[in-house]
Structures are given as structure tokens and as C-alpha cells.
């Protein structure tokens, strides 16, 4: 379906507002090298993006979002600090018939700055809040940094924490790991059989019995993990009290001021989250100063899990409660992404995108 003139007009209006806020307009290629995106997002991006082939440049993807090319451009030759805005089509492959568009407009605003992270976050949120106010959208925010801090504070092995952190964006998998590490669910029968077999001899002997070795994964890697599995089986479970606290945190959903109080309470028993809670307090203060009505913003500790994989701190979205409508806007902090794409350099970054098509549709329906 072609992009509606109303969506284009809305995009132009939002783009102008971002320029007025001090952002420098930037353009990016529609054809992006597939390798960078695959390396960042993994195989799932193939299911969500259009892959095509360029005779000289190899596998390419139709731009699934602007963040990656904008970060790359900034890391290559950006001023410091910098504010950027952009407007254009993104392409998302849809494997199921339905109302989801496979081609739509995004208008975005990104801030790269080393100073006052809370102010930068408040600036982006307040700008979006202000532009979308006529739609009376619902607003939600979260903080991946809080979850990370909570996991890092668990009284368990570095290996278990690393496994949990790796799956922080996959709530079901995270839950399964947590239940297992906390001894709530027994190790699966297959794992017990594996452990029994591993306990019968040295890894090298067991490998020799199994057959000839093939492939890039070296015998020492296999032996290392075999030993790690046995060690892990002997590791005491995460204390029920600690597991409960993580649950309490994940379930937290309340208007931002109440959520902050609740998190301050949780911080008494979870000292590891206190610095992140402190940052949240500073952020909320900055948001309020910037004119955001905090009672109207829901803080959900789990917000942004499963959808916004590159965000690593503050996350937010604006959405309509009408069924079947995608989020109007979303964004967050993605410092780690600048590190991955920066080739040794990094810069704190926060930003977000608005979908003018959704804005136009909601205005049309009003």
C-alpha cells in the first residue's frame, strides 16, 4: 500500500519540529550491508528484513531502521556532541498476512552527548511527549540498566549471571534459566543424563569414545564446557529470597513516581540496583523539569524486553489503546551499540522514532 499523503505531511511536520529542536538533518542509504545488521541482531533480522544481493557489495538489506546507519555515520565523522534527525521509509518483512505494513515512514531524533545523560533522556522524551500530546497517547518507560544491575547483584557464579544477562531480552528464556538456577524447576532429565555421562571419565577419553572429531569447535572448548557443566551442577541454587526480589522487580508496573518509591524500597534488599535507581530519580526529575507530567507515564521494569534489543538503559514508548495499532513512537538509550559500531570508540547516545503513518491514522480517526 502506498504511503498516504497524510502520513507524508505528518512526517514533514515532525521533521521540522526536530530541526527546530536543534537537530541536523541526515540521510542514510536504503541499501545497508547485511553483514553489520546480521552481526548485531542475529538470524532473526533475516526474518524481519528484506535481503537482496548487490553484484559488487554482496548481501544487502533494505534499511530496517535508521539507528544503525546513523550511529555508523556519527562514529565515522560526527561532531561531539551532536543531534540528528532523519525521515524516510523503513522496510520490514511480514511473514503473516495482516494489517502490519512492510514499508512505512519513520521520523527520528538522536542525541549523542557525553554530558548529563538524564538531561539528554528527558530532552528526547519531553520532545516526543509534546509533539504527540494532541493524540493523548499512553506513555510507558522502563530501564534495561536496572535489570542488568539486579542480575549482576545476584549471589551466584559469574557464569550463571552471564547466561541470564545474555537472555535479558528473551523473557521466557530468562524465566526458565532463573527457575533452574533458583532450584524451582529441576534440571531436565536430558541434562542429568549428560552430567552422569560426563562424570564417568575425562573429557578427552569421552570424546575419543564418541568418534572422530570434526569441525571448527576445538576439543579444548568442548572439554572446557564439560568441566563447567559439572561445576555448575555442584553450584548452590540462587536463594529463594533473591529470586523473589527479581520477580518483584520484573512485575513492577506503576505510575513513574510510585514506581520510583517502590524501587527505592527494593534497593534496601537489592543494593546492586541502588545506583540505577539513583539514575532513574535524576532522570524523572529532569523529565518533570522539562514539562512531562510524570503521573501519566507508566514505569514498567519489563518494558522494552523482547522488542528493543539494542537498548541498554532508559527505554520508552508511546502507544494508543486502540487494538491492532502499532506503537506510535519508541526509543531509548543505546550506549553499547555505539561501542560495537565505533571500532574502539564509544559515546553515550539516546533517541527514538515516531511513525507518522500511525500519527496520521489516529488523527484521521479522531
Amino acid at each position: 500500500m502506498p504511503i498516504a499523503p497524510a502520513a507524508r505531511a505528518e512526517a514533514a511536520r515532525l521533521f521540522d519540529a526536530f530541526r527546530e529542536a536543534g537537530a541536523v538533518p541526515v540521510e542514510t542509504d536504503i541499501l545497508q550491508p547485511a553483514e553489520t545488521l546480521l552481526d548485531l541482531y542475529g538470524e532473526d533480522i533475516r526474518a524481519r528484513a528484506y535481503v537482496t544481493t548487490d553484484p559488487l557489495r554482496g548481501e544487502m538489506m533494505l534499511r530496517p531502521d535508521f539507528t544503525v546507519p546513523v550511529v555508523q555515520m556519527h562514529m565515522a565523522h560526527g561532531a561531539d556532541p551532536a543531534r540528528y534527525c532523519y525521515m524516510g521509509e523503513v522496510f520490514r518483512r511480514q511473514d503473516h498476512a495482516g494489517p502490519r505494513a512492510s514499508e512505512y515512514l519513520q521520523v527520528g531524533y538522536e542525541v549523542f552527548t557525553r554530558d548529563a545523560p538524564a538531561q539528554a533522556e528527558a530532552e528526547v522524551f519531553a520532545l516526543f511527549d509534546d509533539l504527540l500530546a494532541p493524540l493523548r497517547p499512553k506513555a510507558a518507560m522502563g530501564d534495561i540498566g536496572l535489570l542488568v544491575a539486579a542480575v549482576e547483584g545476584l549471589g551466584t557464579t559469574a557464569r550463571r549471571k552471564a547466561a541470564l544477562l545474555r537472555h535479558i531480552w528473551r523473557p521466557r528464556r530468562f524465566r526458565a534459566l532463573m527457575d533452574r538456577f533458583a532450584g524451582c524447576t529441576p534440571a531436565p532429565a536430558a541434562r542429568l543424563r549428560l552430567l552422569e555421562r560426563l562424570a564417568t571419565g575425562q573429557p578427552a577419553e569421552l570424546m575419543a569414545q564418541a568418534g572422530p572429531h570434526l569441525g571448527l569447535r576445538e576439543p579444548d572448548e568442548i572439554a572446557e564446557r564439560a568441566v563447567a557443566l559439572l561445576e555448575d551442577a555442584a553450584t548452590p541454587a540462587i536463594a529463594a529470597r533473591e529470586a523473589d526480589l527479581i520477580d518483584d522487580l520484573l512485575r513492577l508496573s506503576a505510575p513513574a513516581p510510585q514506581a520510583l518509591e517502590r524501587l527505592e524500597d527494593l534497593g534496601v534488599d537489592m543494593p546492586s540496583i541502588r545506583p540505577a535507581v539513583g539514575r532513574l530519580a535524576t532522570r524523572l526529575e529532569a523529565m518533570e523539569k522539562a514539562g512531562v507530567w510524570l503521573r501519566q507515564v507508566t514505569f514498567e521494569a519489563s518494558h522494552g524486553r523482547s522488542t528493543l534489543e539494542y537498548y541498554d538503559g532508559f527505554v520508552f514508548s508511546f502507544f494508543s489503546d486502540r487494538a491492532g495499532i502499532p506503537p506510535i513512537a519508541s526509543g531509548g538509550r543505546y550506549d553499547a551499540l555505539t561501542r560495537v559500531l565505533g571500532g574502539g570508540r564509544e559515546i553515550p547516545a539516546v533517541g527514538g522514532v515516531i511513525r507518522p503513518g500511525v500519527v496520521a491514522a489516529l488523527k484521521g480517526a479522531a
Partner: protein
Amino acid sequence: MLKIGVPSKGRLMEKTFDWFGARGVAMGKAGDDREYSGRVEGVPGCELVLLSAGEIPRELAAGRIHLGVTGTDLIREKLADWPTQVAEVAPLGFGFADLIIAVPVTWIDVDTLDDLDAVAAQFRARHGQRLRIATKYHRLVRDFLREAGVAEYQLVDSQGATEGTVRNLTAEAVADITSSGETLRANHLKVLSDSVVLRSQAELFAARAAPWGKAERAALAALCARLGVAVPVV
């Protein structure tokens, strides 16, 4: 005319003919064995179309045939949102094969998808690249691994001799169809115990996009009555 697409050669064709024959619908190649046209007897208004098994999903999706015999695996791999494109008419009870994930037998620390996920993380940290899984079933394997929460892998395309990719260092694991597991064993690979991506068999499908006129619907009803299966809603 109700067009029925059937694999044009091999055991799949013979077994399809046998299955229809046992239910009173005689099918066969017309004339010369090398000629790709056929005949259907027992139900009026039907026409046999002999096609490569791999093309039958596409022909069904395009609605160029009304019915088609092909593997469950091919339908689910090749057709996005397959239930919106075809309806299942009957499983045929042959051509059984499982799509599974296999790793080298010397991976003594790996038995389940859980292990595969952990190894993918270890492999990426050590080798600086994602663990590669060779397959031709990209959609099925990707959906399955996403559902299972396996991360940091990469699919590499392999249209044949997939079991050899590990030996050739072009993949660390494979996802392929197996019926007996002999090829896997011969290539020193073992199946993960919880990795059955799909149990496949030959199946009769109906195309939703085919031109369903009065004559075709009548032929379909007569055919289904003869075969003893419910008439699909198309």
C-alpha cells in the same frame, strides 16, 4: 477440470499412485514413461499434472493446481503463513521424515537446544563469529530456534550434502531431514534430543487460490467421497 499435482518420478510418485489406487482412484502416467502427462480414472472431471515435488508448493500457492501431493516440510518451509494459502486434505502415511538439528558426536557437552545455545555463546566469544547451522529449511529452523530461545547462531544455506558441511568447516551444526539417521551417523553427527523441528510426511493439500468453479467443487466432493476424507473448506 480439477487439477491434481503429483510428484513426477521416484518412490513418491509410485506411493502416491498406490495410495489413490487403494481407494479406487486409478492414476498413472500416460504413454511413454518419460512423458510427463497422466491419467485419473474413477472420478470424473479430474486431471493429473506431474510436477517436480519441490515445485508443488509453489503451484498450489499460485492456484495453478487445485490439489497437490507434497511433503509437510516443503509446504511449511516454502509458503509464508501456509494455512492461508493451502488447506490440509489428508496425510498419506508415507514419506516420513523428521527435520532435526545435529552436531558432531564429539560434542560430549551437548545434548539439547539449551546446550546448543550455550555453545553458540561460547563459540562466538572464542571465534568472533556466530555458530553456523547449515540447512535448506531456513524458515522452519529459524522459527523453531527463536521459539526455543537459541541466540547467536547463523544459518548458512546448504541445498545438498548438508551432513558434509561440518567436515568441510563451512558449518558447526546441521539442520536436515532424516528418516533413519544413517547418513548422520556415517558423518559422525548426532541428533539433539529435543530438536525435532518438524515431523513430515507426504500430504494431500488443496489450494485456496485455485479457480474453484462449480465443476471443480463437484469433482472435489466426488473425489473426497471416494477417498473417504472430509471435503476441505477452500
